[in-house]
């Protein structure tokens, strides 16, 4: 059983090592940029949504709430945290 497990592990390690080498070759600034791109794309998507999907009122109030502001606040905080740290 141990031989079987070790055999499978060796097979998996071949593409795994190749992938690791390829990923390690990506510069850290590029990796960080790609990571920050994710919340940025989400931000663009949210601001491209129709108003009917993001604006509404809560029960008991007439005040119209725009959820895009809250989504943007959360995403911008994420971008700042990951860009700085």
């Amino acid at each position: 059983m141990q031989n079987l497990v070790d055999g499978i592990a060796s097979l998996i390690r071949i593409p795994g090592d190749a992938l690791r080498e390829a990923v390690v070759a990506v510069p850290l600034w590029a990796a960080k940029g790609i990571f920050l791109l994710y919340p940025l794309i989400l931000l663009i998507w949210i601001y491209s949504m129709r108003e009917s999907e993001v604006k509404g009122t809560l029960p008991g109030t007439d005040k119209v709430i725009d959820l895009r502001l809250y989504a943007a606040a959360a995403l911008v905080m994420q971008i700042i945290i990951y860009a700085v740290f």
Partner: protein
Amino acid sequence: MLAPAYWIGNQAIVQRCLGARSEFEAKASFMWGAILKTFIPFIMVVPGILALAHNPNIPDADQALPILIRDVLPVGVLGIFFAAFLAALMSSVDSCLNSAATLITKDVYEQYIHPHASDRHYLIVGRIVTILAIVFAVYFAIWVQRESIYAMIQTLLSIFQGPSLAIILLGVLWWRTTGIGAFAGLVGGIAFSCSLTLINNYAAQPIFQIQDPFLYIAWWSFVFALILTAAVSLLTPPEPQEKLAGLVHRYVMRDDYAKSR
């Protein structure tokens, strides 16, 4: 991988969303949750840094916060802290118990074991499941003390979260996903993540060369389940359009477009 799987697909989160009075309130609650979630790394990390600064010779990392609380907080505030801690704990535990009881009673017991029974019958079954879940949780908490609770929870989650996120994303975003495809993706994905965990743990040299391999296990089981679900879905007949209306991105967008015209 684990964070989106929890915040998008975890049963306790989804059930809270489904319990909202309107679609807008559900959206608003998610936005509020997203803002609060931003502060969680600070809430988790800052007390650890304070504990290390307060007592650099902490023998056990799991004791860092209790020692800090004991040494720093005055007696009255300590009581308030523990009351708040217990309230938060009970809130999380009752959400998990409620969602577990609902899942087993509605999706397993009612569907496959005893359909068409009265609501009172299902209520009693739900309560019994809740008690059994508590007993299991107590036993599991004692058993898990052998190693880090955090690592154990993440390892267990990594087995299920990747495949479940894959089928949720495909089910919401791709109209061609079928029920059989999702089932195959879920079962195959879980089998794949279990196999990776076992191979990584028992091979002479682990396949993942990091301290926390569950991060990679979750990712690769997600990729595997995504491919398997897509492949099986394409080999099975598509779901009827009326079944997908209002649920899948393509038809939701089409309905919205028709309404806006």
